[in-house]
């Protein structure tokens, strides 16, 4: 049995084990003793860094596709992309459940603060435009690499990355401190609870997206994408647009109505 395990492992790596243990230690720390959390985080970051160096796309890509397979009705979709779409479906369900939970508590509450008075609509709008622009940058970089334009790809990815950072800075650096100074803190009741959890989870997704875009930039400079080999750009782009679309729901729900 051990041999079997080893052959499986030698084909892949110990990365899955390391990541899983890192996450487990992280959660252990979250529940019991915060310093332990840091240890878990270090393991995760180290593992992610290692994967960057080895080329994560190869590491986690699927087994090779052969033409002798029945793939009806999805002949033209790659395995990775199908997997990603299924993953996005699960993400939609998570955010969907949370948004429904938000609607539920809001409908059940007798009074709810007026959105435009609590939240800074100007900052929210700015962030919306920033995210939309970053999506545009992702699409442009995909177009660039399809024509083999590596420089265009680098510019596109770089601006998407910068805009993502700008989004987080505005959100965490300006909006949240302002709200907290107004007494709208995470413990101050359901309006604040729903706001912080939903936008917080979205911010985490943006951060994950930034890591992925960062990886693309890293790849663009080291290994290089070509006009025929750029599937990672497209897939990360899909995820990035998804995170963008989630914000399109959150923005009106929290800032406007």
């Amino acid at each position, binding site marked *: 049995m051990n041999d079997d395990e080893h052959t499986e492992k030698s084909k892949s790596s110990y990365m899955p084990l390391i990541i899983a243990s890192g996450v487990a230690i992280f959660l252990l720390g979250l529940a*019991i003793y915060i310093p332990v959390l840091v240890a878990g985080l270090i393991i995760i970051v180290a593992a992610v860094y290692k994967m960057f160096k080895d080329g994560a796309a190869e590491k986690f890509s699927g087994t090779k596709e052969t033409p002798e397979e029945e793939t009806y009705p999805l002949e033209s979709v790659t395995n990775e992309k199908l997997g990603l779409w299924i993953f996005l479906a699960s993400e939609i369900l998570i955010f969907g459940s949370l948004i429904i939970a938000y609607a539920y508590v809001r409908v059940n509450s007798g009074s709810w603060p007026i959105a435009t008075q609590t939240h800074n609509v100007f900052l929210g709008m700015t962030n919306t435009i920033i995210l939309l622009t970053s999506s545009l940058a992702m699409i442009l970089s995909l177009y660039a690499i399809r024509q083999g334009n590596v420089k265009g790809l680098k510019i596109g990815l770089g601006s998407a990355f910068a805009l993502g950072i700008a989004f987080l800075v505005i959100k965490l650096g300006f909006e949240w401190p302002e709200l907290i100074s107004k007494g709208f803190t995470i413990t101050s009741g359901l309006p604040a609870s729903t706001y912080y959890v939903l936008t917080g989870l979205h911010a985490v997704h943006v951060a994950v997206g930034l890591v992925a875009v960062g990886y693309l930039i890293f790849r663009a400079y080291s290994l290089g994408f070509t006009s025929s080999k750029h599937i990672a750009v497209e897939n990360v782009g899909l995820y990035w647009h998804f995170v963008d679309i989630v914000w399109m729901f959150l923005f009106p729900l929290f800032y406007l109505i």
Partner: protein
Amino acid sequence: MFFLIVAGSLGMLMRTQLATPNENFLNPFTYDQVVTLHGLLMILWVLTPLAAGLANYIVPLQIGAKDLTFPRLNATSYWTYLFSGLLLVGTVFLPGGSANTGWTLYAPLNTIQFSPQPGATLAILALALFAVSVTISSINFITTIVKKRAKGVTWTRLPIFTWSILMTMALALFAFPPLAAGLTLLTTDRIFGTVFFSSTQGGSILWDELFWFFGHPEVYIVVLPALGIIAEVFMTFSKRPLFARKIFIAELAAVTILSVGVWMHHMFTTGVNFDVLQAFSITTMAISIPFEGLVVGLVLTLYKSRIKLSAPMLYCLAAMFTVTLGGVTGVLQAFPVLDYAFRGTYWIVGHFHYVMAGTALFALIAGLYYWWPKITKRKYNESFAKITFVISFIGFNALYFPYFFLLDMPRRIATYSILSGWASLNFDATVGAFIFGPAILLTLLNLILSYRKNESSEANPWDSKEMEWTGDYSGTAEASTTKDNSIQSKNGDKS
């Protein structure tokens, strides 16, 4: 992939031991924890992964693929599953103990005010990690089944077990994210002090909705692979094709779709309004129609055929018996009036143990026996298997049948007085438990012993016509050779 199944069974051993609540030994708080862990571990960490483990080996063989599409994701899923289980079991050792809320983790008992121990937080996080693991593996399975079928394995020729796994995984993909969402809210409640489940505007009903939206499909996540296994075994041992195969698949799909629309029947007594009550009463009865269709299809497969009563077949017949009894007792709950009377009693406990422990576990053991020669190239001891089957079936019924008579005994109580008149039935159940538990252990022992023995089995001991045994995917020679190679290399590594 084989070690996944072994670890699953080992986990099950460990967990079966953990999970024998002894009503006289434990104080109420400990009892509550044992109930909670038993429920969580059995449903989520034993039954679900055991099916996934079998599927991990069998599905690629049935569709003529070498492996799942994303082997590394598969490993990630396995390790996250393992660690989430370890975290959950580890909560027992924390000061203040583990969660004591029952497996449904109902609010507001799950909030920090009523269960302040860190073990409860950790249990919730472990559950979240498990949800991640399931999501990863459902992505992998769906992609594999859609994209990795060998030439000739068209949708209409796809084996029933693979169909059932496809449905299961689609359902898991649908059911676990809402659970993850609920757990996220619960975690922020407990750690950062948000007020989702302690407020009166959201509170316990919000949790109920999120939980049961996951919870009911989860029942089918456990039961559908079981039905798939039963269908495969029936076909092989009666040497008949499945009765009305296309309708059977359609019924599987109908059950899958309807199962996300019945969650409210767990909440009939929470004061939901009458229209909602009626709607969900109807959907609950509606789901029993395709489900009975599945059972009838299975029975008609056997009708007037020559059945070979090997161990897998016996287990499947037992599973059919329990699914019928568990199903009938379940349909009664569809009527809100009866649900008002029965809920929270041992009647319910009997019902879901017949479905879960009976159908799912028996069918999964049948699956293990049935595919054991395929997986390990070893033949288990047939007469030993039959004896353990008889013992475990007797033990099972001695354990759970009395529950149907304990109509007035509330569930989740740690002890009861002698005056209640429940003592003799409870004693009977405990005796049953002490027959059933060891019988399961013996079953696993049988499998492990056969694995260690060097007696190899013939390639197709059941003389089955199914693709994973014959290796013939529509007669394409190439597909079958690649498959044989992959098996040989796997076995070469082991011996």
